[in-house]
């Protein structure tokens, strides 16, 4: 029986045999959203009519017997940072309240071409700046495992929607961990592809040299199926990589790591990591060894500077990118009463349109780029970026993939770190190095921490354009864990805070 608790792959099979229609499947998810999203608040906008129309189109296409993508008719939740023509796209900001893009992002174009049904837009930290979704101008998203806790960020809405069974697939974006950290704390899977592997056209820019859209789901295979749909070269993104997409679906199905060398990054663990996180991570390593992988410890000594470099580079790029929100061509405009000039209107609009974290990063970035400080801050951060790349290159000379816990802790309480920006930034300590080097990164669940019964994420990192390697390791680990547990971490029997 195919229902909201099924995987996307199961839904795809049921759609192919006409056991279920896409309209029925889509309606089941819309009903689920209506039932639980008042508590979870994963969605900022639900496109009921549009989703049902897309579902009907997918059903017609199947009935006509034409060539069809495996995911045609399967519902998906889209992070509100990606433009979808005619549908509100707010980036979690007051600045873009009511903005409806006149075009589709390339990710959306590809989803539509594959017949994937877009249910609606998911909540996020404003302009993707944050690790808890508390920075959304529209209120926080709640973790389906415990509604008093954060679902991670910035893509907390997408991951919470998956964990609450509001959607089987979701799109996220990852600048310093915004796909992987939410996946870790909600017990779901999230992949940041190689930088340039998925087009950034129509992705509202935060930090252009780091931003990367990617697939999210509840299983490694579902994530791979979605990866295959959205990846590929796009001439409208000047940093898009013009190479064949690795066969991530075959890799996810392989379930074999015999002979693979897996490096544990010494610097991404130990002190500062919650005991239950370290315990579940270690157990996962034991499973990989039992499946024939060789585990070695690897040192990446410059990773300890990654967080500092990130919080110079990302705000610097943000201060430049967010200058486009000047109240002239789109977005809100405040104080234009005919008596004041454009500059004053911009100042008033940006005062009310941006929240505290966005302002903090714009000011920090403007400072880091200003003459007199440029070399000491931005220039030094770019050198650290070189050192981090070299650490990875050296490590990948001797191992196939690198692994670490995705986050130092499980989901913390909403409000717990809201007044301490530095403590909040530390959530991303294990995810940021991946973005700095542009490589691929995956988080998949490796169990619940014994002390709080909350999900723990296992991170796999693979070299540039070798994304299939993380799917191979992730698929093998997931299969072994599910067989050990008797059921996936998230199933119809999982005790969530929402029924």
């Amino acid at each position, binding site marked *: 029986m195919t229902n909201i608790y099924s995987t996307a792959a199961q839904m795809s099979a049921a759609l192919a045999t006409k056991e279920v229609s896409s309209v029925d499947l889509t309606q089941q998810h819309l009903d689920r959203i209506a039932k639980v999203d008042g508590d979870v608040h994963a969605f900022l906008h639900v496109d009921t009519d549009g989703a049902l129309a897309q579902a009907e189109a997918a059903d017609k296409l199947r009935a006509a017997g034409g060539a069809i993508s495996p995911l045609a008719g399967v519902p998906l939740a889209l992070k509100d940072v990606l433009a979808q023509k005619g549908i509100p796209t707010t980036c979690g900001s007051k600045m873009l309240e009511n903005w409806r893009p006149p075009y589709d992002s390339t990710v959306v174009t590809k989803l539509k071409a594959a017949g994937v049904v877009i249910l609606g837009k998911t909540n996020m930290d404003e302009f993707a700046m944050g690790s808890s979704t508390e920075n959304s101008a529209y209120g926080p998203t709640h973790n389906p495992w415990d509604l008093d806790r954060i679902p991670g960020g910035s893509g907390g809405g997408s991951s919470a929607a998956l964990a609450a069974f509001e959607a089987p697939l979701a799109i996220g974006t990852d600048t310093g961990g915004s796909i992987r950290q939410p996946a870790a704390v909600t017990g779901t899977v999230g992949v940041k592809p190689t930088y340039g592997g998925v087009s950034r056209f129509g992705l509202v820019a935060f930090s252009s*040299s780091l931003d990367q859209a990617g697939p999210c789901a509840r299983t490694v295979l579902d994530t791979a199926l979605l990866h295959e749909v959205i990846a590929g070269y796009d001439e409208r993104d000047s940093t898009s*990589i013009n190479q064949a997409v690795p066969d991530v679906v075959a890799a996810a199905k392989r379930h074999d790591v015999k002979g693979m060398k897996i490096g544990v990054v010494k610097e991404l663990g130990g002190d500062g990591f919650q005991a239950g996180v370290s315990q579940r991570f270690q157990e996962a390593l034991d499973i990989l060894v039992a499946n024939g992988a060789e585990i070695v410890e690897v040192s990446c000594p410059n990773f300890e500077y990654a967080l500092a470099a990130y919080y110079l580079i990302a705000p610097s790029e943000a201060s430049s990118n967010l200058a486009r929100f000047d109240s002239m061509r789109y977005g809100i405009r405040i104080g234009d009463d005919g008596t004041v*000039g454009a500059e004053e209107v911009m100042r008033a609009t940006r005062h009310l349109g941006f929240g505290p974290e966005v302002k903090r990063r714009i*000011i920090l970035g403007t*400072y880091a780029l200003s003459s007199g400080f440029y070399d000491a801050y931005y220039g030094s951060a770019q050198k650290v970026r*070189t050192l981090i790349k070299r650490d990875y290159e050296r490590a990948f000379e001797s191992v196939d993939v690198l692994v670490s816990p995705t986050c130092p802790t499980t989901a913390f309480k909403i409000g717990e770190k809201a007044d301490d920006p530095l403590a909040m930034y530390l959530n991303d300590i294990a995810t940021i190095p991946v973005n700095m080097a542009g490589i691929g990164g995956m988080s998949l669940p490796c169990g619940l921490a014994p002390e709080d019964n909350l999900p723990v994420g296992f991170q796999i990192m693979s070299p540039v354009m070798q994304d299939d390697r993380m799917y191979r390791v992730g698929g093998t680990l997931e299969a072994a864990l599910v067989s050990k547990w008797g059921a996936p971490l998230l199933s119809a029997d999982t005790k969530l805070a929402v029924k």
Partner: protein
Amino acid sequence: MAAISRDEVAHLARLSRIEMSDAELDHMASELDVILGAVARVQEVAANDIPPTSHAIALHNVFRADVVKPSLTPEESLSGAPATEGPRFKVPQILGETE
């Protein structure tokens, strides 16, 4: 000594075209001081002989053929504008009366 003063933050806010109240400036200055103290660590390892990396994947001279392709109509381009006048964005006065 503080890494950044309240006056510097006020100057940066002006450059960034963000109006800030006195309370916001005070709060921002103390927060930025802590953050700058933490991120300044990059200077410990940023030796002179290390080249900077601006992009993870180095790409050079990405060109496409200079061919006109379908694009947004004027109406679509103006669809999100706070104010329009005919086929144009309508904006507040940009230059002072004497300029």
